[in-house]
């Protein structure tokens, strides 16, 4: 008879604890009320501190709405980064029969689209709009773990297609890997900031004149705000999405370009990080990775019976000073052609929605209100055609 000694020796407490954690994790994150409360709390915090978390919270609620909507409703999903958030607004698009989820905020790169694809395809969308351009296909992969959805498969694809990334951004890769397994890990920042802020961060500093408190030693008035240690208005250090101090792009006339951009945007100074966004659009091994991620996303949606529309996101023509627009854009268009041939993807280029001039943009990437409304109107027509067609 086999020994049953191992039953006695098995780490039952740890195993039960693991089951408990997974159960609490799944139960807690299915609660719509929790997310509504989180959104309300996040909206009360300073926007720069929480923009990504707020976007994620809104995504979660939109997806819950779509999951719970009656099956006869037509479903539209819009995916893109902050350019789509600002430039693509399809609100009031026949709300009675079209339900839309707009997953568009900073950090939604092709990698995030790919990590979302399975979750999105499970919602059986009729149409998926992807706002893309050479900025998405020709910029190196940069992981923003908080912005990623749960998908171990996407992680696996990334690791095999661009192994150097696993080393350079290993901490982020690890975070995504854990996030793929456990919801609470991924949403830790949101919960931390919004749900527990009252307790942990105590409170956000209020605008206060110089305090009545006296420094007894020196007998002078101390402004209360001196106790604030970080410039982000929170009294305790909070996790911030910070941009490291990077050198400017190695372009000969970079200072002239900087001056021209500053003049155009009516700003005192253009940051290096802004210039590098444009300069990063270049050929390299990352292009293949980005294309693979987009192609896989399209494949997942089309296999689920969804139509896919790629809307070419316009870039400020001044950005062309920073990268080779002609070759990268034609490469992007060739990729789109391939997608059209292989997956029957629809495409709306800037030649249809444009032309765009620098004064249409508020910065290098984002459209101003008027031009955004024009783009949205053009896309709206195409979306309705595709949904009705």
């Amino acid at each position: 008879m086999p020994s049953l000694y191992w039953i006695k020796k098995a780490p039952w407490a740890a195993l039960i604890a693991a089951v408990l954690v997974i159960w609490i994790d799944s139960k807690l994150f299915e609660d719509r009320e929790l997310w509504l409360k989180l959104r309300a709390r996040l909206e009360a915090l300073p926007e720069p501190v929480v923009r990504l978390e707020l976007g994620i919270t809104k995504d979660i609620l939109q997806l819950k709405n779509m999951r719970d909507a009656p099956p006869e409703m037509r479903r539209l999903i819009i995916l893109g980064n902050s350019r789509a958030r600002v430039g693509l607004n399809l609100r009031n698009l026949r709300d009675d029969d079209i339900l839309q989820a707009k997953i568009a905020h900073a950090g939604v790169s092709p990698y995030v689209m790919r990590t979302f694809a399975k979750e999105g395809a499970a919602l059986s969308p009729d149409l998926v709009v992807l706002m893309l351009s050479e900025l998405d296909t020709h910029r190196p992969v940069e992981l923003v773990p908080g912005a990623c959805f749960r998908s171990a498969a996407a992680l696996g694809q990334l690791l095999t297609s661009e192994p150097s990334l696993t080393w350079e951004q290993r901490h982020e890769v690890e975070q995504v890997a854990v996030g793929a397994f456990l919801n609470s890990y991924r949403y830790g920042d949101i919960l931390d900031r919004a749900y527990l802020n009252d307790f942990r961060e105590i409170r956000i500093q209020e605008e206060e004149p110089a305090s009545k408190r006296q420094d007894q030693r020196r007998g002078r008035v101390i402004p209360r705000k001196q106790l604030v240690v970080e410039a982000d208005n929170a009294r305790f250090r909070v996790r911030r999405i910070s941009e490291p101090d990077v050198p400017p792009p190695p372009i000969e006339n970079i200072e002239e370009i900087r001056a021209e951009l500053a003049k155009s945007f009516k700003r005192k100074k253009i940051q290096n990080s802004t210039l590098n966004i444009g300069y990063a659009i270049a050929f390299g091994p990352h292009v293949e990775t980005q294309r693979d991620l987009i192609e896989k996303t399209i494949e997942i949606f089309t296999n689920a019976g969804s139509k896919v529309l790629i809307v070419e996101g316009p870039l400020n023509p001044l950005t062309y000073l920073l990268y080779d627009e002609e070759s990268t854009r034609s490469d992007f268009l060739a990729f789109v052609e391939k997608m059209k041939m292989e997956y029957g993807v629809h495409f709306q280029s800037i030649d249809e929605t444009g032309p765009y001039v620098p004064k249409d943009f508020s910065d290098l990437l984002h459209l101003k209100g008027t031009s955004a409304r024009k783009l949205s109107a053009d896309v709206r027509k195409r979306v309705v055609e595709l949904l009705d067609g």
Partner: protein
Amino acid sequence: MLFNTLDFAVFLIVSLSVFYALPRRLRNPFLLVASYAFYGFWNWRFCGLLLLSTVVDYWAALRMETCEDQRRRKHYLWISLGVNLSILGFFKYCNFFIDSFTAVLDSIGIDAPDYVLRIALPVGISFYTFQTLSYTIDVYRREMVPTRKFLDFALFVALFPQLVAGPIERAKRILPQIVERRHASWKDVQSGSWLIYWGWFKKVYVSDNVARIVDTVYGAGAEPTGPEVLLALWAFAVQIYCDFSGYSDMARGVARLFGYNLMLNFNLPYFATNPQQVWRRWHISLSTWLRDYVYIPLGGNSGGRWKQNRNLFLTMLWAGLWHGASWTYVVFGAYHGALLAIHRELKPALKKIDPVSTVARSAWWLFRVGCFFHLWLLGLLLFRAVSFEQAASLGYILFTNTDPGFVYDWIPPFLMFSAPLLIVQIWQGATRDLEVPLRWPMPIRALLFAAMFLAIVFLGEDHGEPFIYFQF
């Protein structure tokens, strides 16, 4: 590679898998390679220093063993001491001495040029230097026979769980374990896993969170009130304890998974009732090292009271300087030296207070714990300060400013993060069993493990905050 990162988790899983997949004779060589890889992860250039220290002490110990001439033996000991302390002195104290010298010249009116060497401090240098020194001194004293196997000795110096922040092990304890080529038992796996988990919880949930209060008060431009400083000192006491003992627990746990048994480094130090007791419970591996290699050679308990107190004082000065190249650490050491000496003088009088009833005895114990804890906090005020000016300023505010400031807002998070620690420690103290949670009924343990995990995930710092003691 910090213990509280996923990098380390991957490293540990791979190392353990390979370690147990290999035949026993190859395990120690593999562990040595893994230890150098672990150290090289910080800065591979410093692996050379580690190797140099290892080679010199291995050679010196063997020469001492084969040599009968006491003078020549002493000569080899001095070589070992010279090389190790020179490395330590150069990398850790060079700029400190240059700065101090410049300040002295400035104070007597000589205009000294600003001269600062750009020296990176090799992580863990104070720990492994003391560890190798203990080996050569023990061999010199003929308290142990040196090993002839270089790989065994190299593994003793570099064994990765304790390499960068202790415990400062003794060759007498570890070398026999290395020779024995150990294998973790099921009990080792259980207790090792618990130690890693508990250490991780203490670091990521308790220490890194209460650190926010400390950083706020000690941060640049802060103008705290007296109660805020007091709460920040309580928080720092919790932070530094959980940071360092968390690391030690994790180190012991990791070593246990490989079958090695490292010494206990912390034994509920905040339940100490006097300075003598605290140094028997706090950083035990350092305090016993100082006792054996500094205090006793200075004369120890022999001689008159003045001489004994002088020995105590000098030993604690050394302990302070060990912590870092700064005068605040030296004064921290002096402060504790003074406390120990005063306690020694008061001991006979204190012994006479002997309450009869249980309640009175408990109250007296609590009173002493509370009093000593706050004396300890005064030391920490210096320990955490970046300068004497800051320590003096905060000390002044502590005793003169009574404005509550934000202290009522800070108390709830402080309690939230430190209460679990306190509860478990009271239990450990009452049962005199540091692994008591492992003996709780299974459902309670399951709940505890799950609650700890969720607390770490929801509230823990996941950005791999470095351990405080790595800078020493």
